[in-house]
Structures are given as structure tokens and as C-alpha cells.
């Protein structure tokens, strides 16, 4: 497992490719990947940058426990979870989740489970700066794809 909180820009494709190259050839039959990227708009306003605050001790603990429980529950071959903190600009990746499993269902389901947990439980908070200079906290995340919303 690779679980990291990262304070500088990251390249999701490069990170996933490099990690996958460390896995034994033929050990997995499916890989699913999610990349969350910063938009340049939110609630009809243009956004110029964002700062991601977190609760370091709790975040590390939560992410490691999440990774362990999801890997066990879905019998994953491997997983990777990277999450940015600090100042982020539009177009930059915020989160990267990748899962490797024997078959596609487990890879898809585990990837989604981790992303939804990250969005609803992991102690990160976004503070965005509008192009006019005003800053504000993001008060809620959008509902997940299976929320019915």
C-alpha cells in the first residue's frame, strides 16, 4: 500500500505508472484509478487558488485505516492513495486513488469506496480564493454518485 499526504504538485499518471511497475507481473487483472482535480469555478464564482487544510495526525490515521479496511474488504492486490494539502491551483490534482485487483468489480468498488470516504470523513478542508481576492471556506462537498441526490 502507498498512502501519502503530499504538500507539492503531483503527476497522477506518473505516480500510478511507477507504482504499478513495482507490482509482480501478472499479479492483477484490473486496475481502476480516480483523479480529483481542482476546478476554476465553484458556485458560479471564478476561483484562482485554494488552500487545503488538514488535521495531520487524524488524517494520517484515518487514511491508513481506510486503506487497510478497503484492501481487506475487496481483497485487493494493491492500492495507492495520494492527497494534496497546501496551496493548489486550478487544473492541479487534489487526490489520486488507484486500486489493483484480480477482477474489475473489486477494483471499481474499492476505488469508489475510498473516494467517497475521503470526501465525507477524512479531515481535510478547502478554503478557496476568488479571482477578486476574496477568500471563503468550502462548506460542503457534492453528494456522491450513489447518494440519490
Amino acid at each position, binding site marked *: 500500500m*502507498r498512502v501519502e499526504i503530499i504538500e507539492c504538485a503531483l503527476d497522477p499518471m506518473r505516480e500510478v505508472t511507477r507504482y504499478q511497475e513495482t507490482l509482480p507481473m501478472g499479479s492483477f487483472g484490473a486496475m481502476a484509478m480516480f483523479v480529483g482535480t481542482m476546478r476554476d469555478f465553484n458556485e458560479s464564482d471564478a476561483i484562482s487558488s485554494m488552500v*487545503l*487544510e488538514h*488535521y495531520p495526525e487524524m488524517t494520517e490515521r484515518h487514511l491508513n485505516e481506510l486503506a487497510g479496511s478497503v484492501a481487506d474488504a475487496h481483497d485487493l492486490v494493491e492500492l495507492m492513495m495520494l492527497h494534496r494539502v497546501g496551496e493548489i491551483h486550478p487544473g492541479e490534482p487534489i487526490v489520486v486513488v488507484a486500486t489493483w485487483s484480480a477482477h474489475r468489480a473489486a477494483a471499481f468498488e474499492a476505488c469508489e469506496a475510498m473516494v467517497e470516504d475521503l*470526501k465525507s*470523513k*477524512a479531515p*481535510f478542508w478547502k478554503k478557496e480564493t476568488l479571482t477578486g481576492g476574496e477568500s471563503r471556506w*468550502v462548506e460542503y462537498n457534492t453528494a456522491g454518485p450513489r447518494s440519490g441526490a
Partner: protein
Amino acid sequence: MRLPHRDSLRKRLALLLDPISGMSINIRFFASLADRVGMREVTISSEGVDTAKDVWLACVRSMDIPGNARVAINQEYASFDAAVNDGDEVAFFPPVTGG
């Protein structure tokens, strides 16, 4: 690779700050809630403080607990009725918005 779990130096510091009784609770606020209460970290005596709600009342007298506030005790989600003990770290924060 598993991330190292940091030992809480703040707990040790809190105990040093209360040398008479040695009983203290470290409190942390995050994000918009930290802005609203005007502080990020404070240490209080644990005397007479039984629950997370008591912790809030002991250190934030100017504001009721917001309806959407979350609380964690020693880095785990808890309820406001959960018991707190000497040396605990109690954190208050708004709904999370990561990912």
C-alpha cells in the same frame, strides 16, 4: 508504505503546562470553526470536564456549538456526549471538504 503515526507532543506539553494537578486536555479547532471561535489550540484543566460538550463549554463561552460541528477525541470521531479523560486531545471542526 504506512505513514508514521506521530506521537502527540502536545499532550506532553499540556501536562507540563499544568504542573500542579497534572490534569489537562488539549483542544484544537480547524478550518472555518477555528476562524469563528478565534483560536486554533488551547489547553484547559480537565477538572470538572466530563464530556466533549463540557470541553466546548469550558473554552468557547461566546458561541453555542454549531449544529454542523464535528468532534474527534484522540483523532477519532466521537459524539459530544462522549467521555473525555485527562491527557486527551479534543478537536472541533466543520464538515470535511476534501477529495
